[in-house]
């Protein structure tokens, strides 16, 4: 079997006594696309926030690349190679697209306070190397050349989603958490985004492991290697898309009638 890169063990999270996640465990293998599905309020975003460190689970442990990251603050997890996008877009609205992506490279830039205030020699050269990386690897891949100088707050929703992905990629992560990357996009944008996800997952250059939360069943079943289903914070199924689709409990909880399986979008 392939190597486990991310593992959650018996995660328990509650808000003022209301359980959002109960005893959730799963393993994500290196290089796969692992999807988490479930009805609204099932706790998918909470799970992402726990992995990422924004929420602290009351019980349970998280392992990333063999390290226990349970108590680590989010920025330390990012330096280990864990990146994410958000369900509600969380861009830096006052910065340009390019600066947003540059911020994603924060941990790769070495210059300190004094060198930054000079911007000559080393700092300038370093900025150029990173600019080159951003232009050639990210902007080119995600096809956002035309808007690189625009302030992100003003851009249309679909583009903002794409820029969030660009910023998350700039980190050069090993695992990327994608929280509903397709929500609110039109059909063409959905197809583009699905293509980008496959690209970053399969391209030799990136090989990023993806943890995907998505309501669009068609895309989830097409892209995922494995799928986990949550319902009211409880894990009810895990397996290949085929297995999950056939699981009676999943059908009862979430997918409804079997004929409706692909009815969500197509």
């Amino acid at each position, binding site marked *: 079997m392939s190597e486990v890169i991310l593992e959650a063990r018996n995660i328990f999270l509650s808000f003022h006594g209301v359980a959002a996640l109960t005893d959730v465990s799963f393993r994500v293998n290196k290089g796969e696309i692992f999807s988490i599905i479930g009805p609204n309020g099932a706790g998918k975003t909470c799970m992402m926030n726990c992995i*990422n460190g*924004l929420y602290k689970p009351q019980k349970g442990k998280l392992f990333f690349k063999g390290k226990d990251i349970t108590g680590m*603050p*989010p*920025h330390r997890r*990012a*330096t280990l190679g864990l*990146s*994410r996008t*958000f369900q509600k877009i*969380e*861009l*830096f*609205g*006052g*910065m*340009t697209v390019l*600066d947003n992506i*540059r*911020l*994603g490279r*924060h*941990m790769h*830039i070495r*210059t*300190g*306070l004094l060198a*930054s*205030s*000079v*911007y000559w020699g080393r*700092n*300038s050269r370093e*900025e*150029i190397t990173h*600019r*080159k990386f951003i*232009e050639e690897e990210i902007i080119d891949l995600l096809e956002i050349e*035309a*808007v690189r*100088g*625009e302030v992100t707050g003003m851009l249309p929703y679909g583009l903002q989603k794409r820029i969030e992905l660009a*910023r*998350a990629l700039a*980190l050069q992560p090993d695992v990327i958490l994608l929280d509903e990357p397709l929500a609110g996009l039109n059909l063409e944008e959905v197809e583009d985004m699905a293509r980008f996800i496959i690209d970053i997952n399969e391209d030799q250059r990136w090989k990023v492991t993806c943890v995907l939360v998505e309501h669009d069943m068609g895309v989830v079943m097409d892209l995922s290697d494995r799928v986990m289903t949550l319902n009211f914070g409880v894990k009810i199924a895990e397996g290949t898309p085929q297995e999950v689709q056939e699981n009676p409990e999943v059908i009862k909880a979430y997918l409804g009638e079997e004929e409706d399986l692909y009815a969500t979008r197509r």
Partner: protein
Amino acid sequence: MSYLPCGTYFESYLEEQKWWRTPFIKGKMILMLVLLVALPWLIPKDWVSVVCNVNYYILAALGVQLLIGYCGQITLGHAAFVAVGAYCSAMMVLFLPWPGFMVENGLAYPLSVLCAGFMAGFWSVLFGLPSARVKGFYLIMTTMAAQFITVPLVITQYVSRIGGRGHYFQLPPGTIKIGPVEIGTDSALDLGRLGIWDFDADTKVYYWSLFLVLLCLLAMGNLVRSKVGRAWVAIRDNDIAAETMGVDIIWYKLLAFFVAGFFAGIAGAFYASSIAFVSPEHYGWEFSLIWVGVILIGGVGSIQGLVFGSAFFVIIIEVLQRLLGYLSEGFEQSFPTLGVVLMKFVFFRDTAFGLAIILFLIYEPNGLAYRYWQLKNYFNLWPFSYTGKGH
């Protein structure tokens, strides 16, 4: 960033990230530098000290701009850090047993300016510590605490007791020396073949302030376009996302407080030298408010805005004051009571400032810098103004 004139292209990333990107801009900037250097000879003598005051406001409000405009940490106690800088520098110059050669070669004061920066920086970090936990309104309260703890208590009650000179004291002529130049006295500078140039006290202070302003603005400009500055702006715009992207937000907030305090310390050390006097009255809480007002008028989150705001504020106040002075003088003979009434209006300068802030917040919340940006774009895009916005 404003739009470039049509036909300007860059062929390398280096070209694009330069300070002065086109020959036109380069020319403009060089012209500006020349004008700045020649300024004392271009304006009436009694206005030189006004320009020095503008520069002091730029230095002092720079940290406010950094904290509020770039890092999103609202501060209402910045005068405290300026005071720390002023007292630190003045007391170091007066009370430290400097070795003789350092005093003679004018190294003592410049060194004290640097120390004032560090001292104020660390003092500022101390009051920035709550920012790790609190945001917005609560942070405003903790920064106000900085003002009230530092100036009326620590400085007035304890620090100014050192040396037994009272709350306020003079820096005797000759104590402030930068290299061979004495600040605060009139003197002539022998330039050899170029002849002997007379520099009065104000002109020397002006050059000293110009040097500091250019240095600090350059450092600030470079900071905000590199890693550190981007992290600050990211914290301002969305601290959760910043943390997720690997920015240690507590560390960068404290760094912002340190750098802001450092600039404030330098501003204080400059101010003490420019008036050769320190007194807690010059660092009251109203100055903390004024510097926030200055960046509101000029434009939050813009270095140009800081310059515009400082110039606007200082010059408007000066003009108002002089106008009222002339008027009351002129009418004194014919209408003695009117002169007195007009003199009373001097106190309305604070009202004028308050009014200016309100008007700016209503009619131009983006400040003067935004107007300037629009103007530049208008010329750069002329006559095809509609091509500016893509898609």
